[in-house]
């Protein structure tokens, strides 16, 4: 069974540019998560989807971050405009339901210059 797929794996952009990350969860997993992981830290939740509904986006900086999961499968996380402090690894995870095991993708390492 394929795991969580993320692309791109690496992205380098200049500040004030937009950037987008894509995630394809494990087949059949209706719950999808986006996390931010700073160097040396544990992941922090940005947003959680149940199917196509964002049920927890309290930690998402909505002035520059947006996310969508239009058909309840793939998801895209966008930053516009990017700031230097956005440099981090962006992880996507999925689970078969809330409070069930979350499986993570490899992440996208973003560097903002």
């Amino acid at each position: 069974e394929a795991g969580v797929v993320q692309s791109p794996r690496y992205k380098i952009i200049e500040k004030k540019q937009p950037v987008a990350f894509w995630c394809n969860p494990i087949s059949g997993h209706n719950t999808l998560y986006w996390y931010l992981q700073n160097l040396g830290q544990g992941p922090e939740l940005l947003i959680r989807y149940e199917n196509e509904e964002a049920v927890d986006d309290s930690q998402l900086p909505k002035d520059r971050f947006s996310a969508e999961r239009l058909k309840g499968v793939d998801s895209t996380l966008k930053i516009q405009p990017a700031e230097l402090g956005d440099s981090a690894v962006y992880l996507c995870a999925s689970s078969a339901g809330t409070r069930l095991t979350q499986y993570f993708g490899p992440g996208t390492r973003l560097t903002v210059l």
Partner: protein
Amino acid sequence: GESVGLHLPTLSVQEGDNSIINCAYSNSASDYFIWYKQESGKGPQFIIDIRSNMDKRQGQRVTVLLNKTVKHLSLQIAATQPGDSAVYFCAEASNTGKLIFGQGTTLQVKP
């Protein structure tokens, strides 16, 4: 606020020895705990989980112990191998399913 912390940032063990990684959590209402392993350049990999109605759970070479009295969680790895070298995170699940991760412990296995 809620937090899950690990006692040691780095643990160095000899190959073949047993490893014990500790974690303290603060929310006594949490009822689900997970250990993840993260290798360099990869996402966190699920190792083992435990629910609060259990004190101990065993997997292949790994055991998780939960002490609810002192809000302490530990991961034991038997016969540690070089491939076990990684950062280990404990995570606490809130009643909404949100995972709260600790800082991580780096396990270094000496040959």
